[in-house]
């Protein structure tokens, strides 16, 4: 479904992704964890070519885009197969909450306005923002903005959704809601790649987990394998803090 081959990315001299290979099956929820600065966001952004890899190829549903200077048309097609939830939300500042969600439907998918509005409104209700549809992003709290971002991606109903820390600004209640939504759409066969640092959330949502550090994939497998019984020393150290203080865990 998604196939990354030998993805390399440098920012000047900073070699951020060092030959990443990755396969994701249809309907998979792949979770990427790893320390801050390890390249998770960069990898996610390479998948829809918001960041151009210096080397390597990306296939989604058999459609392949390759190298640093692919054609605009190819990139557009790749992007239309994906949607993304950004780490810092990136809402359209000049559009209301409802318009933010409708925008992609109307413009990229050429959906009639009425239909787009219905879909958007119902998704916004799902994430608890029914009251805020006519506000602008600048009037929302952090968590509210993040939920708009999630709704915007879901609305597109693409083959692949890329989530960059989608619950970072959400309280446990909301995390539960998002979890439920992700599980539900995974059942509908949508493939998802989720970057998160919330290990609890990762365990519940993932059916595969990748652990990254320093631009490499260190370890991958089921949530059990990677998050509970990690083989690699680096992974163990990463997860240690949580294990070390069992008296606070429930």
């Amino acid at each position, binding site marked *: 479904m998604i196939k990354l081959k030998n993805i390399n990315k440098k920012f000047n001299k900073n070699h951020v992704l060092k030959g990443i290979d990755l396969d994701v099956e249809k309907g998979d929820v792949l979770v990427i964890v790893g320390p801050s600065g390890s390249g998770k966001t960069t990898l996610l952004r390479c998948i*829809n070519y*918001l960041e151009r890899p210096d080397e390597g190829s990306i296939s989604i549903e058999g459609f392949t885009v390759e190298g640093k200077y692919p054609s*605009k048309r190819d990139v*557009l097609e790749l*992007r*239309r197969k*994906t*949607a*993304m939830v*950004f780490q*810092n939300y*990136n*809402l*359209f*500042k*000049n*559009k*209301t909450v409802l318009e933010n969600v409708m*925008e*992609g439907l109307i*413009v*990229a*998918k050429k959906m009639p306005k009425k239909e787009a509005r219905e879909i958007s409104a119902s998704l916004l209700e799902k994430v608890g923002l029914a009251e805020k549809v006519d506000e*602008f*992003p*600048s009037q929302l709290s952090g968590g509210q903005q993040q939920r708009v971002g999630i709704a*915007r*991606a879901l609305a*597109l109903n*693409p083959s692949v959704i890329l989530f960059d820390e989608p619950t970072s600004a959400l309280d446990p209640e909301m995390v539960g809601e998002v979890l439920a939504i992700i599980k539900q759409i995974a059942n509908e066969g949508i493939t998802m790649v989720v970057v998160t640092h919330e290990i609890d959330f990762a365990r519940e949502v993932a059916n595969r987990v990748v652990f990254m550090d320093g631009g490499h994939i260190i370890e991958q497998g089921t949530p059990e394998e990677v998050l509970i019984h990690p083989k690699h020393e680096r992974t163990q150290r990463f997860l240690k803090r949580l294990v070390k203080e069992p008296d606070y865990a429930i």
Partner: protein
Amino acid sequence: MASGLAGWADLFIKVLDKLPLTLLMLGLSLFFSIILGVFVAIVRIQKQPVLYQLATFYLSFTRCTPLLVQLFLVYFGLPQLLLAFNIDINSWDRLVFLVIAFSFHTAAYLSEVFRSAYLAVGRDQLEAAYSVGMSYPQALFRIILPQAFVISLPNLGNNIIELLKDTSLAFTIGIIDIMGQVRIILGNNHGMGMFQIYVVISLVYWGTCILIESAIGFLENIFKKGRVSISRQ
């Protein structure tokens, strides 16, 4: 010349009579220069090889040489040039030459206005647009330009008002606009009553300028939705 109230009123009427012509020149030039300006700005932002060099040269030439010279080039030079190809445009209305010259001139300035405004819109906005599957033109017209437009409005105001005043050059090629009218009157009087005449022309320009400013202010209010200023505190 007649003085007193009747004199003033007479002067006003004579000048105002030419205002529609001035506004017509302003409107037409503005329309074309906005289109060309956006295009040049985008070419320069994208740095596409040959087009970029061309646009930069165009920008430099039109910004850095006197408008009068450009007007001469278009009005006197262009017909000669075309005549060499057996195209005779000497019979075209002078207004056409004027609008061509002014559009090219103003577009250069506007392209910098738009370029700076475009760059002031965060990159995150473009990425967001891409992420929902928009092509570049779609992102441009639906997300980036509307935001850039608000940022550019005060500068747009500056340049429209400059253009308004530049239209007074129309008279050099014989279009009698409000300034041309004034010069004829001044000539008839051997420069007497200069004070009165300049008061009138200033008032007419100022009045028009206030109209432009109100329109800009109105647009700023409409388009600023969703933006937060540092003066919020």
